[in-house]
């Protein structure tokens, strides 16, 4: 078993007082993917909180603040344990059986949410690249490994080159991006090839030399018949293992934003985030 300590911190400062605010935080490690042993969180407003489930069943922390404030911070710490994973998968199915299965109507209907295009995973009509195509000649897992390294080579990791609303079209134009761009592109290509894929947000162990650990990380999961959902991280050209501490999944980034707020205020805001993940 591996043990990880996680600290998540966010601080928002507002130019003008905020009269009222609703915040939803999606930062609690998912207890299906690992064991969450010590979980603590606080916020600046000393609010009572409610943990509710989002539409995919992940826990969100809700704050409703009705007293004026100019600063909001939130802090979470957790200890989690996870068995070591050797991410080497072999499907018992033949490539042609896999191909047939994912093209069956029932399979597509049952996984429709992760096959539908979204704003952030929409592939532009004209693309200058030929992406690897899934044709049923090799196993899906193998295809996805190939796709992962293809994207790893296609894009240059470049912090702050994009933001959370950057469409794929722009990412392909500048050939730069951060983890969510790799994930969106991966998902988009999977869906085009009728492989259900979803966006995953989480923490990544900082001690192991990965890219994208200073903030929350993002990767993708694809559904492989008879294997289930398997995580692929094109940013690091890896299949996700026990170093990947999942928070939530969804159809794209917007289902997994760590913090969403609706505020009544007039001015701008400044945010600081920090993530610390240590491995004992």
């Amino acid at each position, binding site marked *: 078993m591996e043990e990880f300590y996680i600290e998540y911190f966010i601080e928002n400062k507002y130019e003008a007082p905020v009269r009222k605010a609703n915040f*939803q935080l999606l930062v609690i490690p998912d207890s299906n993917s690992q064991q969450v042993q010590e979980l603590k969180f606080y916020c600046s407003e000393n609010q009572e909180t409610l943990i*509710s489930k*989002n*539409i995919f069943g992940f826990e969100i922390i809700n704050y*409703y603040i009705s007293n004026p404030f100019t600063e909001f911070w939130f802090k979470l710490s957790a200890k989690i344990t996870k068995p070591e994973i050797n991410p080497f998968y072999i499907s018992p199915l033949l490539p042609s059986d896999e191909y047939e299965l994912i093209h069956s*109507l*029932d399979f597509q209907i049952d996984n*429709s949410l992760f096959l539908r295009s979204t704003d952030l995973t929409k592939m532009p009509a004209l693309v200058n690249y030929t992406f690897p195509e899934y044709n049923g000649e090799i196993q899906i897992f193998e295809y996805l490994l190939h796709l992962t390294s293809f994207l790893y080579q296609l894009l240059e990791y470049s912090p702050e080159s994009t933001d959370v609303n950057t469409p794929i079209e722009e990412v392909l134009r500048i050939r730069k991006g951060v983890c969510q761009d790799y994930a969106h592109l991966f998902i988009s290509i999977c869906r085009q090839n009728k492989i259900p894929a979803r966006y995953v947000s989480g923490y990544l162990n900082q001690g192991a030399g990965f890219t994208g650990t200073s903030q929350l990380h993002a990767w993708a999961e694809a559904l492989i018949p008879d294997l289930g959902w398997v995580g692929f991280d094109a940013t690091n050209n890896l299949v996700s293992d026990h170093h990947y501490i999942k928070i939530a999944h969804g159809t794209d980034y917007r289902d997994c934003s760590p913090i*969403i707020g609706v505020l009544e205020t007039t001015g701008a805001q400044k945010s600081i985030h920090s993530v610390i993940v240590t491995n004992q």
Partner: protein
Amino acid sequence: MKQAEKGILDSYSLTNSHYDEVFKETKEPKEHYQSIVERFNQLSLSDYERINNEVKTAFFNQGITFAVYSDDKKPDERIFPFDLFPRIIPNDEWMQLEKGVIQRNRAINLFLDDIYHRKLILKDKVVPADLIFSSKNYLKEMVDFTPEGKIYTHISGTDLIKHTDGQYYILEDNLRCPSGVSYVLSNRLALKKSLFDLFDKLKTKTVYQYPEQLLEILKTVKPKNIDVPTVVVVTPGMYNSAYFEHSFLAQKMGVPLVEGRDLFVDKNFVYMKTIHGPIRVDVIYRRVDDEFIDPLVFRKDSMLGVPGLMNAYRAGNVTLANAPGTGVADDKAVYHYVPDIIKYYLNEEPILNNVKTYHCEKESEVNYVLENIDKLVVKPVDESGGYGITIGTTLTKEQIEEVKVRIKSNPRKYIAQPIMSLSVHATFIEETKEFEPRHIDLRTFCLMGKDTEYILKGGLTRVALKRGNLIVNSSQGGGSKDTWVLG
């Protein structure tokens, strides 16, 4: 009142090409219109104009108006044109229509429950799965969530027309926030005041139970563990074109009319801000569109919504009527499948006719559409209020080419139908001071609650006031008539 020498309906001239609701081909009134025509013919033109003006003034003073904004001037307030000559539907004809509308809405409600849960109708290939999943109105927030009482479409406004063959056809299903019922009640009141003796001649079904029925229906879908629910109507605010209706319904139901800013969500419960503190809200009849109801989930820039509302809804702490995501079923591309949907869930033959519909996304049909645009009505699948509709016979060559380009660039967005010949009804035209035939349709109002249904006996007869115009929507310059279902 003195007998007019010449009846005001005498100068009415028939059109040959359309079904006339009032007159036979011999220009004699149909049986159910006889006494009304007699009564109207007793009025002199000046009597009629006087009554007409009184009604207009009354509507104006009641604030049954919409505002037309222009630069730097004060908004110009106008009433929705109302025609005093009522549309009459004989009882047997209505009973058939009522059964058909209820059948249709029952099936649609089952359809919504299915496509948000087991999706059997898609797996059985009765409705193409792609059609549903490619619709932006199919909301992931509703997948596997069951609204109280399994009711999605608490309020629906089915639009019908009568074709040249004398048959009713469904024009569209309005399953989001159908409006117009306040005009039905206001029109009736106006007619009762101005032509009270008409009501002695024909017995008509009352329309006044609608608000109480609506309240009862809303109470049947209250959240669990609530004895007496607090019901509210949510409006986008008084600058919304249907604000009159929102305040009218709230007032007649005796419930608060609230705006998004009056509500807040704390720990998954919804409260309204009152002068003596927060009061919990249990059932919301919302007249705000899906994408605006919760800025945490849908449009972030929405000022009309309530942050956290969807969470409270999904936790079962508040009921929304209609349920979010019903728009996927009144998509004009789904319309075509409703007869199959009725057969699939109810194992019944559809009572009401559908208009033949061509899907531009189907290769087998799009070619027919592109070659016959001049004979078809082309509609975008996801617009309401008559926007974006083109009618083939009215288009120039250039316009036809433009429509072709639009269809080719996004075939999923368009359907086409043969130009249906809406029936005509004698309508007073102010410019000519004469009754002339004008096209009409009928919006019905159907309510569905837990184990209960109600349909308003009557509806809103909308009339296209411009000669030859086929679009009756108020946003396109249409008026309305009182609609009588005979008892």
